[in-house]
């Protein structure tokens, strides 16, 4: 914005000094350029990582009306452009926890796939800007993992309109649930709080798994037996029909296996084929073939320095590498972590330390999560016609010394590199 202001002032001065010299038209044009819409920009980068396999050198990315309008290679930086070392598409975090506080969790029932998280999102939370400025331009806000089947999430931009609907992206509906200790560990036993409903909830992994299977079996049986029906049964059937994607949090091997075996059991029973994504799959590196066999995508949590993740899972530094090599679609995530070192750009760097190439790491924070969320038509690559969600880098992306120096979301500069 500084630059625009400066240009406006110059234009103003020039207008007043030279009007009588007949330069009126010229200066008006100049002022007009400076007063262009706030979602129109010219970005110049030494390298543009398009995300579709190309690296375009010395390129201009022209942004018009919030969309990428042109990518022109072999140019020098024009005046008034945003000039940086590198440009990638905005990063996509498929597992964040912005605003998903205690009042987003409906604790009275374990299975509530019909419930949308949208009404618990606070677009005024300061963490949105923090995420946007770190280069994350699209996120998937899911229910917290305190329920077995927590509900439907929302894919949305991290900046833009002051309303959930204004930032929302049309995506494939995704129901999120959990396997492991999250939906059971904090529940009280039958003793202690006789007036509350906590004694109804699962308190063990066995109980969690039972809730999952009961929900699917009841949903199928309810078509013939009305007494088995429950609120959300139709959504469970949509999951079985593959119309709604299912994202299950499962950190440890035993929980990843439970999720995969659940899918296979539903297929064996002839109930349908679940379109499965496993989130927080820290131990997925132990059995990648299970994921390949069931065509399961994974979202990885941030790599803990010690390797010790939650639920007793151990996350190897080459987790992403092992999975990508096996052919499993892998997205990296912050899993809601707030530390800078656990944010998405840093995770891509760590995944490269674990063996991913730059291109693979970039895919793991852009195109792969875009496909997992079903929003690849709009975001994930730097491509003409797509949303102008761009990350401007001070060096080679994901390198420890490179920083996110600028960010555009829908063509609006939310982090100014100048």
């Amino acid at each position, binding site marked *: 914005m500084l630059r625009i202001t400066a240009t406006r002032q110059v234009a103003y001065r020039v207008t007043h000094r030279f009007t009588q010299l007949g330069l009126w038209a010229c200066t008006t044009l100049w002022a007009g350029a400076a007063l262009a819409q706030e979602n129109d920009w010219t970005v110049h980068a030494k390298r543009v990582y398009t995300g579709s396999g190309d690296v375009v050198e010395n390129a201009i990315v022209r942004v018009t009306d919030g969309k990428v309008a042109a990518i022109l290679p072999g140019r020098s930086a024009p005046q008034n452009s945003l000039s940086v070392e590198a440009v990638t598409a905005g990063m996509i975090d498929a597992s964040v926890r912005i605003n998903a506080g205690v009042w987003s969790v409906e*604790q009275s029932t374990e299975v509530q796939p019909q419930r949308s998280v949208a009404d618990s999102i606070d677009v005024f939370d300061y963490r949105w800007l923090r995420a946007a400025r770190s280069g994350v331009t699209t996120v998937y806000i899911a229910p917290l993992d305190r329920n077995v089947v927590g509900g439907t999430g929302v894919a949305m931009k991290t900046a833009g309109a002051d309303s959930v609907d204004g930032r929302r992206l049309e995506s494939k509906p995704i129901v999120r649930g959990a396997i492991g200790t999250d939906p059971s560990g904090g529940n009280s036993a039958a003793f202690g709080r006789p007036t509350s409903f906590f004694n109804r909830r699962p308190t063990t992994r066995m109980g969690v798994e039972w809730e999952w299977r009961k929900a699917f079996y009841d949903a199928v049986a309810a078509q013939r037996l009305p007494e088995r029906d429950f609120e959300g049964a139709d959504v469970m059937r949509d999951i079985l029909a593959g119309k709604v994607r299912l994202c299950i949090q499962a950190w440890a091997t035993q929980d990843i296996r439970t999720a995969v075996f659940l899918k296979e059991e539903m297929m064996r029973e002839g109930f349908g084929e679940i379109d499965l994504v496993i989130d927080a799959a820290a131990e997925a590196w132990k059995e990648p073939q299970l994921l390949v066999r069931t065509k399961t995508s994974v979202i990885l949590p941030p790599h803990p320095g010690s390797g010790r993740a939650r639920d007793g899972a151990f996350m190897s530094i080459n987790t992403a590498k092992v999975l990508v090599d096996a052919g499993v679609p892998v997205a990296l995530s912050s899993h809601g972590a707030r530390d800078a070192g656990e944010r998405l750009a840093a995770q891509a760097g760590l995944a490269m330390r674990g063996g991913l190439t730059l291109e693979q790491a970039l895919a793991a924070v852009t195109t792969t999560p875009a496909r997992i969320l079903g929003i690849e038509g709009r975001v994930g690559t730097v491509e003409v016609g797509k949303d102008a969600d761009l990350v401007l880098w001070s060096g080679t992306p994901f390198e420890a010394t490179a920083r996110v120096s600028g960010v555009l979301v829908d063509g609006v500069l939310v982090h100014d590199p100048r």
Partner: protein
Amino acid sequence: MIPIPLTSLALACVLAAPADHKTYLSASHVHVGDGTILENGVVVVEGGKITAVGGADLVPDGHAVQKHEGHLSAGMVSLRDAAGVGAEGLDRTRNVMPDADLAWAFDPKHPDWKRLTREGVTSVVIVPRSGSLIGGLTAVVKPATENIVKRRSHLHVSLSSSGLSTLRYPTSYPSAIAELDSLFGEGGGAIGAAKKGELPVLIEARGKAEVQRAVAFAKRHGLKGSLLGPSLAGELAESIKASGLDVILVGFGAGQTTRSLASASLLSAAGVSFGFTTESPGRDPVTLRLSVAAAMRGGLDAAVAWRAVTADAARIAGVADRVGTIAAGKDADLVLWSGAPTELASRVESVWVDGSHVYDGGKN
């Protein structure tokens, strides 16, 4: 000021003018409530009502006038206080009670009310305590004269986390909103009256996201009324204005943030009416005047700030025909101040409610 012979506050009521007898009050400055100030104004009181407001010419020759040095204003209106309601304001076993009538919990003898009277607060909206989805029906009361001005003045609804509990359904915003949508979809009783626009709602909403949801909720169900407790409402003033809702701010304290102070000015600039509660931390009855002073410090025009605790508050409470300004036909709820009422150093020297002299500045 002519000394008023009083032996005790309890006896103060004897000063109430007989029904067929007019009392003439005059003060150096009479704050009528519409922004005008009458110098050496006269207020005529008869049968607990104000019958005329004007200059000295209102007084017939030879008639006694109670002359006061100082500023006379209408009594202030608090848009939420639960003194004298206490724990009765919340039923912990059920969180949807649209037809519960809080007027039944009004205890006019509760000692806490006196503190409000002494600070010039003469009308109070009693509101169910936060903690329910639908808390019930509010009432507008005058504790000093034990009068209930209006029963069923609003329906109290919560879209705030303060209406949620982790121990019973619903524990989350999405479920609470789904539950409220379902209840308002069915209608009936007080909810039906609210949907028809006959009964205004007080929608509790504090954070900005809660305000957004509350505004959307009111729009979905065609509700009229006010948002209760949104300290940063000014930052959403445009959408609140479009919704037609008024705003009830939690009374300001000395340590109010500049953002929430600016919020009052933003509301005013957008043309949204607002008033204040006296339920600030510590429930200090001086809250309304502190709110006025703080809002003025935040840039709000003095007349607008004063209206927020008198005329605008009365309108938001739904009792503008009775209280909030000094005008013929209104209740004789009057406060005599030692200086300008918006000046924090000014003291309350006398309070009349329904024409009864209920406080004499602590002299007796």
